[in-house]
């Protein structure tokens, strides 16, 4: 059995050989990790710059969302968002939806609105007796999102209390809800914010997903099939 030390020793020997014998020391490691203060400042500057560009970013998001096969709606209030979601659910003749307690969803007051249309709304969490079964049996999963990337129409989601991983995974339809001020332009922007958050929380224990459209495959004859293991229909509700 290889221990870490034995393994790394092999690597070191290989490195020395490959570098024509030149010794490599750790202090040499030239890709410096993010400096906490640096990253905080970077994040602050980025936040300001993004705020100024919000309208053009929204347009960019709109274009890329269509390319990525999201069904996207822009609304201007929580009430409109609620309406839009209820419309989607009734349109699909849904019986059950599962949702997270993410702030962007929680404040919409979805449960009553859905129940009034006889659609059962369940907050999915570890108190559910059969979480996986409940999620797999639901018609729709509704989640709030943390960030939106305009360039690639990607929505990010960190699993946390009240936000189960499977809410956006097991039901055949996913509705993602986000605020316009959660928008960034590129992957690079998103990772700057993540790094800043990590620096603050110093809690590295996290699971994140970047969702950029429906589940799909092209594994048979390179023909695209939508909806393999994950949701085949995905909606993005953006509250301006």
């Amino acid at each position, binding site marked *: 059995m290889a221990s870490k030390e034995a393994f790394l020793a092999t690597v070191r020997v290989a*490195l020395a050989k490959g570098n024509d014998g030149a010794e490599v020391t750790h202090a040499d490691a030239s890709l410096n990790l993010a400096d906490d203060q640096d990253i905080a400042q970077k994040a602050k500057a980025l936040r300001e710059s993004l705020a100024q560009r919000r309208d053009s970013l929204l347009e960019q998001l709109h274009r890329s969302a269509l390319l990525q096969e999201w069904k996207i709606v822009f609304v201007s209030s929580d009430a409109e968002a609620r309406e839009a979601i209820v419309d989607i659910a009734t349109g699909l003749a849904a019986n059950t939806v599962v949702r997270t307690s993410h702030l962007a969803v929680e404040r919409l007051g979805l449960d009553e609105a859905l129940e009034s249309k006889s659609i059962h709304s369940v907050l999915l969490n570890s108190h559910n007796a059969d*979480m996986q079964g409940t999620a797999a049996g639901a018609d729709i999963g509704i989640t709030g999102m943390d960030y939106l990337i305009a360039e690639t129409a990607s929505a990010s989601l960190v699993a946390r209390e009240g936000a189960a991983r499977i809410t956006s995974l097991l039901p055949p339809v996913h509705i993602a809800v986000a605020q316009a001020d959660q928008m960034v332009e590129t992957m690079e922007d998103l990772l700057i914010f993540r790094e800043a958050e990590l620096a603050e929380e110093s809690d590295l224990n996290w699971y994140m997903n970047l969702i*950029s459209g429906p589940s*799909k495959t092209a594994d048979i004859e390179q023909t695209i099939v939508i909806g393999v293991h994950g949701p085949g229909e995905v909606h993005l509700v953006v509250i301006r």
Partner: protein
Amino acid sequence: MPSIRTKEFTPRASEAINNPTIQESLDRLANFRQGRADAIAEFGQERWDEHSKRAREIKEKTLDHLDHYLDLLSTNVERAGGKVFFAHDTQEANEYVAGVARANGVKTVIKSKSMVSEEMGISDYLVGMGIEPVETDLGEYIIQLAKEAPYHIIAPALHKSKEEVSELFQRVLGSPAESDITALAGIARKVLREKFLQADMGMTGANFGVAETGTIVMVTNEGNGRMSSSLPRVHVATMGMERVIPRLSDLSTFLPLLTRSATGQRITSYVAFATGPKRRNEEDGPEEFHLVILDNGRSKMLADPQLREALYCIRCGACLNACPVYSKVGGHAYGWVYPGPIGAVVTPSILGIPIAKDLPFASTLCGACREVCPINIDIPRMLLKLRSDATEGPAGTKKPDRIESMMMRGWRMTVSGPRMFGLAGKIASILQWPLSRNKFLRRLPPPLSGWTKSRDFPKVAAKPFHARWSTMAIPPEKGDKDGK
């Protein structure tokens, strides 16, 4: 390790060339090539080149300090509550995974496509223990049912027509005949959904391992990577030791390159970032997380300055799609886990040249692979290096061809000076006389018969250029030209 059939390169290549269904599926590689070109155009060539350059720099520096970043990665995975196992070879890796499965009473393992797990041959290993491994990527599931090796790094069932998939599903799953591709995918979805919900262990690869955070990154379109890392009680990720990157922010360099090079996508449907097992306040996720980091010959490549850059590979598959040879012979001819140009470098490097000697030679060295590689990996250069190891390298790597070596010695003498060179030409022009037909030769003895079977070969000129120069040495009168 999975079966090694590298010695059957030529017959298996021939099989593919003469199989119209396979040629039809290989023609579809054009979609990948076009998709990639379009995606880069949209991204912007200049921006692309910048990303490429930065990616290569990051790879160079990371590998220069690989011990450091691996140490950091494992420390951070452990800090997040995960376990890390460093495996020298596939046997060690398999035993570790088996141990985890045994300790957890695992009966079913759901797997998300991973080249390293193919390299390990973990599926066969688990079967031997009475555990059911289920591939969940559609393409990988198809070839698992067909008991075949992946045909392409990112499209494992590239070579199968929908008719063949339908037949396979009928035979193995007892499903009805189906000619619609969406319906075929639906059949797999249904079977696999049940497996997902009942599995006790999920295995995934790792496209990247982020040292700074201890995060492994999984890039998928189907969602099976998310399933495998979210549903079962245990998540085991396997990665080659070269897949570590220093910082989270480095992903903004690599991800755009990876997905656009691979399938021409701006981004895949899912990119999942997993750091350790589920944390206390999380609602769901695996209770155990294991990361297996594999060497299996990679340190040999690390130690060779001429082969090290093969470890920069991000397994996008673009070099396969661009390769004129892969585009005709397909994936199985390469005989092991990694096909195509990068496979022709990696396979002999890991398994040894004597058993994989064909691979570095079975290339036209056209350079298309280097041209499309997002990390600018110089594959042709490494193929030349492996060729020279095969003919002149140290004992153990060397596997020379006697007749050819003799011919090369003859050639070397021939080009040692103009006199020998001229003489050789004269001799050849006498020898060719009985074989000639007009200005061309239609039949040459072996080993040149391979050429003349389907191509004419030119005759050696009666008067070579060296001899002609003496009459040309003085330019014609200037006046001749001016008078035109």
